[in-house]
């Protein structure tokens, strides 16, 4: 615990200087991580197969995890030191004021904090007194003494002594809080970054949010604001503040529409890595289920009984285990996409959204191929019925194929897989045991629509901030995703303008509109596909997800109907098909090249 002299003398700039250096290490490690992922991993990945490459890949991946770890933890240390210096400034100021007042009054502050004062009285003999903190009248130090005392200086000295003691107490509390937080930020020895280490890093982040909450307050992060407001807020921060928010509140920063994609990606990757570790550890801790049936101990009928231990296991883990496995599958799919950078020419990935728990357990995954802030053309693909985090791999693959097909047109493209809504689980009656399929209701789309709309606005805002223009955007909806797209076009304000330049739908059961114009775009920018053997458009029109039973592949809808060469509801993104190629043409704005029905 510091003394008042130590509080007076402490050079707080030493802490902020040190913070700057930790911050530099954190930022450098972040950049180095990108260099590992894109400069090393992708290269090896692109060229070699076999055991040597696997070993090398494992080593390089470990290096990447190290830089991630350094980025997080050194960033937290930076914030701790800045928070410490900022918070200590207040008691130090308070102390210095008290000391100045003592000096100007001719009092002496003794080494132990008591205040010596000359007696000032008509009745008392000249001499001196000593005041100490801890007033007899609580909450009014100096007052009681001053009023009741025959010595006019007594109360004033008492007040000064109390303020000195208070300042020291406050400083000690701050110091203790940050010291504990800092001690939690030890590096594990060695080179391994284990799941335990990453899970600890998540805890460290939480602890630092508590410890440094007064300094870096998450209330200042905009909530429920427009992406433009978010972008403005981000612009208003210093680089150091941005770095601090990104390392201290990665989940909030990663989810903020309108922020630069690279910033969101860094923040979300941090959350992803830590969630992966936590999920794995929790899975590891679940014991194997005990034997389900036991022979009936009474030997009579029935021959077997359910093992009570099994029932207990079921109660405890029966729901949790598959849920964790689902989350892990989703994370592995995203990690798989990260690792595929460089393979088949795939560009770097940007994780623009990650939350395994939101949307009623369906989760959120938003991943871009290539940087959407700078691409000339950005396409956003919205998956449909039954989508959830555990099965997201197939949708990521579709976005990859959209990227490859449209990049082949010779354009600078970014394709985004956007999944951030509670998707209906059943597509048709009896599917998943539902008599009335969930997809026949538009409430799922209604709930998700504002989220999609805000995301599209954010994409535009980030593009404008980075490139000075909004770029060309295409919104692609598959199946129920197209219903959501239809709702989203109508979720904005009238002066927002169209949600995208072009809209493509595949296997659409209806868009909550009966003509393209209702979507805020003209018919020539509306593109619909319905493959042979895809029964969803018909089914959708029967349950009324369109309006007046009209679906986008109907001529009344007033859009373009593109020719398809795929079969059924799920093959529109098969490689080398006209179905995929037509989408690529729209994405790059080559409307002449689209082959219509």
């Amino acid at each position, binding site marked *: 615990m510091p003394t008042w002299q130590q509080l007076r003398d402490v050079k707080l*700039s030493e802490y902020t200087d040190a913070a700057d250096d*930790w911050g530099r290490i954190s930022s450098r490690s972040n950049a180095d991580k990108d260099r590992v992922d894109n400069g090393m991993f992708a290269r090896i990945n692109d060229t070699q197969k076999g055991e040597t490459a696997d070993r090398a890949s494992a080593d390089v991946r470990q290096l990447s995890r190290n830089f991630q770890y350094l980025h997080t933890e050194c960033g937290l240390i930076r914030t701790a030191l800045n928070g410490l210096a900022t918070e200590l400034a207040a008691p130090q100021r308070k102390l210095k004021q008290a000391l100045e007042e003592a000096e100007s009054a001719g009092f002496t502050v003794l080494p132990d904090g008591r205040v010596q004062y000359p007696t000032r009285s008509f009745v008392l003999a000249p001499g001196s007194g000593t005041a100490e903190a801890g007033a007899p009248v609580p909450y009014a130090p100096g007052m009681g003494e001053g009023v009741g005392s025959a010595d006019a200086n007594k109360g004033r000295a008492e007040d000064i002594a109390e303020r000195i003691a208070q300042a020291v107490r406050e400083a000690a509390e701050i110091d203790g809080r940050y010291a504990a937080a800092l001690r939690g930020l030890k590096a594990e020895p060695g080179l391994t970054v284990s799941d335990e280490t990453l899970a600890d890093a998540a805890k460290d982040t939480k602890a630092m949010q508590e410890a440094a909450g007064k300094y870096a307050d998450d209330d200042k992060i905009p909530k429920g604001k427009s992406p433009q407001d978010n972008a403005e807020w981000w612009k208003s921060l210093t680089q150091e503040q941005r770095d601090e928010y990104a390392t201290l509140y990665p989940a909030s920063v990663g989810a903020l529409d309108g922020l630069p994609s690279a910033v969101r990606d860094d923040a979300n990757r941090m959350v992803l890595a830590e969630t992966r570790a936590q999920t794995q550890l929790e899975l590891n801790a679940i014991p194997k289920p005990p034997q389900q049936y036991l022979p009936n101990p009474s030997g009579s009928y029935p021959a077997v009984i359910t093992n009570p231990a099994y029932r207990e296991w079921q109660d405890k883990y029966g729901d949790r285990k598959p849920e964790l496995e689902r989350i892990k599958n989703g994370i592995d799919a995203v990690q798989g996409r990260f690792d595929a950078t460089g393979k088949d020419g795939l560009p770097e990935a940007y994780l623009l959204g990650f939350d395994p728990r939101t949307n009623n357990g369906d989760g959120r995954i938003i991943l871009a191929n290539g940087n959407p802030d700078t691409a000339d053309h950005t396409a956003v693909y919205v998956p449909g019925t039954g989508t959830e985090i555990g099965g997201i791999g197939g949708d990521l693959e579709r976005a990859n194929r959209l990227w490859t097909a449209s990049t082949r047109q010779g354009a600078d493209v970014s394709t985004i897989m956007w999944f951030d809504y509670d998707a209906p689980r059943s597509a048709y009656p009896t599917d998943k045991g539902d008599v009335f399929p969930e997809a026949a209701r538009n409430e799922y789309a209604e709930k998700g629509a504002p989220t999609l709309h805000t995301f599209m606005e954010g994409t535009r805002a980030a593009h404008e901030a980075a490139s000075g223009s909004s770029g060309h955007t295409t919104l692609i909806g598959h199946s129920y995703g197209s219903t959501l797209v239809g709702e989203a076009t109508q979720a904005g304000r009238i002066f927002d303008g169209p949600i995208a330049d072009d809209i493509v739908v595949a296997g659409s059961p209806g868009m909550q509109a009966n003509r393209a114009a209702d979507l805020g775009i003209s018919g020539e920018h509306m593109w619909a596909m319905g493959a042979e053997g895809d029964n969803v458009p018909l089914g959708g029109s029967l349950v009324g997800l369109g309006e007046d039973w009209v679906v986008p592949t109907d001529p009344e809808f007033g859009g373009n109907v593109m020719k398809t060469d795929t079969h059924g509801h799920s093959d529109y993104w098969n490689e080398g098909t006209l179905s995929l190629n037509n989408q690529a043409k729209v994405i790059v704005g080559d409307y002449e090249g689209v082959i219509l029905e």
Partner: protein
Amino acid sequence: MTLNARWQGLFEDTAPSGPSERPAAMTLAGTTAGDGGASGSGGTDLKADVGPWHQAGNASGELRVSTGTSLTDLERGNEGVAGGTAGFDSSAALTEILGTWKARLTSVRDECGRLEGALKSAGRDFGEREADTQRRIAAGAPAPSRTKEG
């Protein structure tokens, strides 16, 4: 430059890669594109798909330097703290964790150095095999002149 011992065994076990595994187009492209200017490792034996491995090795070398800079930052940034902040437990805490991060950064820096060497060696080894295979298959074709690095 010594081949990393951990990977050495792998190379011995790896059967020479046939042309079907790596298309000739890649080899030819690599020969012309090359990456001879990439760094001072000086080998003229960098051919074919050695390029990416060598580049990855170079990247690792840059990361070694970068991590070295971080180590310097770490020392400089914290040297004034102890003297200027006597009596504060946070300073003691900082000193305690400082050593652990020095150790981690040192491990990372050394690993970058190890990978730099190992990746470049691997690339060179792949390249040699590739060239040998090419020679065997296209006997009579002029083999690129090169010197084996010792």
